[in-house]
């Protein structure tokens, strides 16, 4: 059996989109914690995120179709996922998609017009990882990835 190149595995995984926010990959989101020739280690974002199972199935399908049938997928809870694990390119993709990426700033930057004159409408949004915000400048509502 040929030696498995982990760089190639990372590349396959980077092609697996998040089912809820398909503009970013599971690698961008920091869901993939570790890759070895035997095993891909993943961690859920939120405890109750319904996408967790779909993500695992999607990763399995991607690995299988790239010929990595023997690479196992292992789920770990610890250390708990945090938004710090979202890559810089992932944050840029979120912003371009219309979702304000997580940041320590008190207000979000509006992904439509770039204003920082924004306010939180509700701490919970369309998915567990996002809050609902509104821009006071362009008046558009938008999602903000919660700092977590």
């Amino acid at each position, binding site marked *: 059996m040929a030696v498995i190149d982990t760089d190639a595995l990372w590349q396959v995984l980077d092609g697996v989109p998040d089912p809820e926010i398909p503009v970013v990959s599971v690698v961008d989101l920091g869901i993939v914690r570790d890759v070895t020739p035997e095993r891909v280690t993943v961690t859920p974002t939120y*405890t*109750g995120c*319904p996408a967790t199972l779909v993500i695992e199935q999607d990763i399995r399908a991607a690995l299988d179709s790239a010929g990595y049938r023997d690479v196992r997928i292992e789920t770990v*809870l*610890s250390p708990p996922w945090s938004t710090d694990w979202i890559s810089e390119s992932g944050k840029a993709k979120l912003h371009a998609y219309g979702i304000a990426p997580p940041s320590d700033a008190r207000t979000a930057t509006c992904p439509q017009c770039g204003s920082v004159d924004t306010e939180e409408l*509700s701490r919970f949004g*369309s998915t567990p990882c996002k809050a609902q915000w509104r821009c006071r400048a362009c008046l558009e509502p938008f999602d903000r990835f919660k700092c977590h």
Partner: protein
Amino acid sequence: MATVAADNVLFETLLRLGDDSLILGQRLGEWCGHAPSVEVDLSLANFGLDLIGQATLFLNAAGAVEGQGRDGDKLAFHRDVLDFRNCWLVEQPNGDFAQTMARQFLFSTWQELLFRNLEGSADETIAAIAAKAVKEVRYHAELSAEWVIRLGDGTEESRRRMAEGLEWHWRFVPELFEMDALATEAATRGVGADVSLFRADYDRRVRSVLAEATLAAPKDQRPILGGRRGHHGEHLGHVLAVMQFLPRTYPDAVW
């Protein structure tokens, strides 16, 4: 309960944790599509989702410890009411929105302190679930406290309803801090929490929020205990009837 079977402590501890989350998650699901506003609807659905997520992890772990082939789904959908180990607080009916928020505030404030404690559990799985979930539970505690304040310090009507909600649930708080033989054994082994350690912190937090809500704490009532040993109120059976109907009617159904 005179003695506790040694190998049963971890299983029962996981059931208590998982059943609290499961039943409250199911209760919150009843609000879906009925909340006062779409934002609140999303909040309650998200709370429920977090809780069901916790329940899945705790009950899967319980099934693994038991080693008889039961997983989280089996434990959730194929146990009868006497086998449930949740506290009385979480099985209480939703009532109106104020009553739901009063219940959530009293529970989530406790659960946040509990999970902080359990992050140091000697059981790696419990520690990992607690560390993961505590970040979410903090949101539940904060948001429900905001509603206690907003409704308590609101109109005459909202104030009356919040006071009634707190009054109703107050009698179920002592159970959260009960240390029976099993809880004591679990704490001694370092896998479960000694809940008495954060009772003072809990009381302080609750009273501070009530003060901000300009509400007096309800008078202490005769505590109602027994949920941890399978003694439940009339409500839990109805919760289970709805929750378990489908998997019991169609046992071979899969997601």
